[in-house]
């Protein structure tokens, strides 16, 4: 398998050397290597000096600054009463001004209420340092230069001003945001990692879902591979073709990089990825309903078949489990109790997040405990990790937490507990869940938990695409 991987990388390099223009693999020095078998290869785009591409656990290759820190953008989003965020080809709205009151843009409430914990609330640029350009910087490819309100120059990618996050301290982290699609409804305008497109033929795309970077065909359906196939040989014939649809390639399609073309029958070509023929599943659907954002993954545990990822997420800690629930599968603790993440962004115009243990805990303590940490810890208890638990990646982790404050603690602090984390945020169970598969705490909180609340960690959803 490792040999096959090396061969694949070799093919990628050949492709890089042999293919001109945009269809070429990125070359970059990695400062962090996600502990997974395969890494996504991205298109090699021209970049200004000093920037790079870094592999991440969650979102594959992302652009980084000279320190290796992930770069983000902040696309505006229409809210009920305003549209915070940056507009394409416009100057950044993220300034040095420290916001002290609400903007009234997202809720039923008027503007002007004093924000909590102002002593630790940063300015927008403290939370999201702009990626500044030197006075003599020149645009390169999709990279342009915008002028900030204070006159400084700021790099932009595809017209969007760029930032780093003060929550990232190591190359490979994406603690500031994830590439997964925006939840519909009225969520705050999140920040998103910016990266080069994946190296795929035009008939494919790559999408970040709750288990990795999954490959999709032109119709938006997840692509699968079959254990019964051999490298560059499809054994899915006859009855098999009633359920599985080979992803066909045009007569003119060419093998490039990790992508190959085999001939199923005279004149009928099929794409392969990493040497394995690829298919779609006949019962999968691209969600057509308003609000459903993903495709289904109906066959993700069909024996012998596997969704094809350009890069999978690192495995969760072995102490965690996966449970069946009423819409699909959900991450759970060792006892099978559903795990939840907490999501928060305040209602100030700069929409700073409030879901990290270094940030204000006031919102969380309100929505899960009416301000009482004791109540909160009963409604959404921390998912406690063994004291000696460790992880080998930047996605799943552990932290010591003071449960009375929700802030980070030291191991020897009185009352400190050791908890599982996801992107450096604690994860939780829910006090009303009684048995494995219960998910009564899902969508808990303001805006169904999109602005200040909890969400079950869905990894498969056959109905709404919550995991995709």
């Amino acid at each position: 398998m490792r040999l096959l991987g090396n061969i694949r990388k070799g093919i990628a390099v050949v492709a890089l050397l042999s293919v001109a223009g945009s269809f070429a693999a990125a070359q970059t020095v990695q400062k962090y290597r996600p502990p997974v078998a395969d890494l996504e290869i991205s298109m090699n785009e021209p970049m200004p000096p000093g920037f790079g591409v870094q592999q991440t656990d969650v979102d594959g290759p992302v652009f980084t600054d000279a320190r290796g820190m992930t770069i983000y953008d902040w696309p505006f989003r229409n809210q009920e009463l305003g549209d915070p965020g940056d507009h394409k080809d416009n100057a950044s709205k993220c300034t040095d001004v420290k916001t002290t009151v609400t903007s009234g843009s997202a809720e039923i409430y008027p503007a002007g209420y004093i924000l909590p914990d102002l002593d630790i609330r940063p300015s927008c640029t403290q939370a999201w340092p702009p990626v500044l350009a030197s006075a003599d910087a020149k645009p390169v490819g999709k990279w342009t230069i915008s002028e900030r309100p204070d006159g400084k120059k700021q790099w932009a990618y595809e017209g969007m001003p760029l930032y780093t996050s003060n929550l990232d301290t190591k190359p490979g982290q994406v603690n500031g945001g994830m590439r997964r699609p925006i939840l519909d409804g009225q969520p705050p305008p999140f920040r998103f990692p910016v990266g080069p497109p994946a190296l795929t033929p035009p008939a494919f795309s790559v999408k970040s879902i709750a288990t990795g970077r999954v490959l999709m065909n032109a119709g938006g359906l997840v692509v699968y591979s079959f254990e019964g196939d051999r490298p560059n040989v499809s054994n899915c014939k006859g009855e098999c073709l009633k359920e599985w649809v080979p992803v066909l390639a045009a007569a003119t399609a060419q093998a490039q990089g990790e992508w190959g073309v085999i001939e199923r029958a005279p004149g009928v070509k099929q794409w392969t990825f990493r040497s394995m023929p690829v298919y779609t599943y006949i019962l999968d659907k691209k969600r057509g309903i308003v609000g459903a954002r993903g495709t289904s993954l109906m066959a993700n545990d069909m024996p012998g078949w596997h969704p094809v990822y350009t890069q999978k997420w690192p495995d969760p800690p072995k102490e965690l489990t996966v449970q069946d629930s009423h819409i699909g599968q959900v991450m759970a603790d060792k006892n099978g109790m559903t795990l939840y993440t907490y999501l928060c962004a305040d209602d100030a115009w700069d929409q700073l997040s409030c879901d990290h243990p270094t940030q204000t805990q006031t919102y969380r303590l309100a929505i899960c405990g009416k301000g009482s940490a004791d109540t909160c810890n009963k409604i959404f208890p921390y998912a406690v990790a063994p004291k000696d638990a460790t992880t080998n990646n930047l996605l799943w982790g552990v932290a010591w937490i003071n449960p009375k404050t929700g802030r980070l603690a030291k191991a020897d602090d009185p009352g400190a507990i050791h908890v599982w984390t996801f992107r450096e945020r604690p994860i939780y169970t829910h006090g009303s869940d009684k048995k494995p598969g219960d998910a009564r705490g899902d969508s808990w909180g303001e805006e169904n938990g999109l602005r200040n609340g909890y969400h079950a960690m869905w990894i498969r959803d056959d109905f709404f695409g919550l995991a995709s």
Partner: protein
Amino acid sequence: MELRMRAKKIALPTFAALTALVIGAASASAADLPPVVKDGKISYVLTHRLWTVQSNDEKTECPKGMNTGPREQFHQLFPDDGKQRTVVDTYLKREAEQALPSKDSYDPFPYLEAQGPIVHGMNLDGKVKKSDFGDEEGHKGIDNQMYRAIGCIINFRGPSINPIWWYENEYVRRYVANRLMIEISGVDSLENDDDVTVKSYRGMDELLIDAVGDATGQVITPGGTQRIDERWGKMFQATWKAKIVNGVLITEATDATIPIFGRYLTTAVLPIRGMRFELKLTPQRANGVIAGYTDIEGFQRYINQSWPQHYHSNGEMPTISMFHAIDRLADGYPDPKTKKMTAISSAMDVKMTQVFIVPAEKPQPLAALTDRQQAAAQPAK
């Protein structure tokens, strides 16, 4: 092109339905059974569901008008008077009280309960009490305190630009996650049968929509097929003993949970204690009422976790006050220790459409993989 695709989409299931009709006609054993009853079974899928709220006599039902919503309550509590207020003391406090309802939540607002004497529902406790309602057919003892609690809220009654009731009913049809079905078995007659069994399932498929449609474009055609969601939908499966009297299915009471997924990307369900059906049956439709005691905590979760704050506000649903009203009016399933009622009598108007239930394909067991691979590896003939 779109029209052609739509016609194709409709044509295939319609052909299947017609075929099934023919087969059904050949196999029906009882002379009075319609051909869609096969092996003593007929099934229906839910296509319409609304909390029973009369809406034709607002002056009688809500003589003091409608309740005002959280936006209006907020402005009353925190008027634009120039005072500097904090997030913590204002909207976080209100949101916390909504998320964690309790009788101690600050709620100085008068609450307008529905006053009308008539509403759909069932006599759930077999008694005729002062607090009960009657229905339009003259039945007495209708237990439906949910109507009293929510009957004067625009979100459940209208009119409004974005009432929850409209979306909920739309999502019954639109979201497969809400695909509630019943299968009636042991059917000897759709007119009178003193012993039938009803089982509920969640389906996995889109509805069969008529090519022409009515004014809303939502005519659901009988004869579609639905696979049972045996994997994720177990919690929606329940069984009732029942009888059919003069064409009306009347079930006994069984605890059940129904899917009630509200706004997309939310996953709330609704437990109903002692849930019953009363449905007028035809070979094509089953229309009537689902009634029972709605679990209060389940109802709170469904309201809070299915519908975001701006839906509460747009439909002028004073959520904290409404939770208090439901708590106050709860009339079923007292907690053995505290004696506090944990459920409230309620009813929903429902419409169901005949459907053929087919077994779902299950993932192949791992042990079969080798055979499967071998079969798959055979050259196509």
